[in-house]
């Protein structure tokens, strides 16, 4: 079944890498990219997402705050932080918000594992 996956990262390179891996595995899926939290929330006003990867440090809203908002809006979505901030403190915040946690760098293995888990 086709899914809608939101990729939020202020780095174009990271978005490109994540999207390319998803596309190679699931060419039918719709991938929506956003460069910050505000644009991500704007996109989600008109699209129901099934999954999302969220960077932590971004201009404006951080990824945890965004994740909490997305969780309210999409209680069943498969959400994960995808961040270079791999501190225990960051992991704990993600866990408390009910959001998964993947440490950068982006690798094919990590992204495939994330989308496979999200396929349910």
């Amino acid at each position, binding site marked *: 079944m086709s899914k809608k996956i939101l990729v939020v990262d*202020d*780095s*174009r*390179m*990271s978005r490109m890498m994540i999207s390319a891996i998803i596309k190679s595995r699931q060419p039918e899926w719709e991938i929506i990219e956003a460069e910050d939290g505000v644009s991500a929330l704007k996109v989600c006003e008109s699209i129901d997402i099934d999954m999302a990867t969220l960077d932590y*440090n*971004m*201009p404006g809203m951080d990824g945890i705050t965004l994740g909490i908002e997305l969780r309210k809006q999409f209680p069943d979505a498969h959400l994960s932080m995808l*961040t*270079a*901030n*791999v*501190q*225990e*403190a*960051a992991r704990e915040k993600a866990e408390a918000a009910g959001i998964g946690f993947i*440490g*950068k*760098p982006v*690798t094919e293995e990590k992204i495939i594992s994330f989308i496979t888990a999200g396929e349910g």
Partner: protein
Amino acid sequence: MIEFSEIEKDAFAEIFNIGIGHAAASLSQMIGQEVKLAIPVVELLERDKAAVILTGDKQGNITGVREKFEGSFQGETLLLFPEESSLELVRLLLSEDLPLDMLTEMEQEALTEVGNIILTGCLSSLADLLKEEISNDLPIFVQGDADNLLKCHEKEEKETTVMFLKTMFDVQGKNIQGYVTFLMELDAMDLFREKVSRLFAMEMES
């Protein structure tokens, strides 16, 4: 004048090494190549002297990424490459069949993200080790000579003493060398020193 004892220098280098080890592992994962690390240098010196030893006898422009960090101690960390290394690194990171104009256009963004992953990863492992939470600013792409890169942008602080930690890394089989550098002002350094000695005291007790 503050001075470090040999045992303190050793402790700082060890802490730094753990962070850099994490950084090297991330870089190696990104490019699929082994990354060799040199022994870290720990010095107390003025900013302008730090610029001199930053790149050794290598001349010319360097490019890199700077991140300021803040917690119970604050400072800045830089990932720096001689200019010729940076494009080579971007070639390895992105697919090699990208046209040159696209590669050049992506160079700054790609380096900024690499810098972010390496520096934030390094800070994260320091934070966990010292049982601290460290937040960092967004990464900033920097380019120029070493002297300019190490200047504080808010005020002229060329003669300010800083704690300077540097290690060089080398990607085997590729023309890529770079440096990871930490700079801390004296007041922040005292707190850092205290945290490190507490950590080592705890380890020796256990």
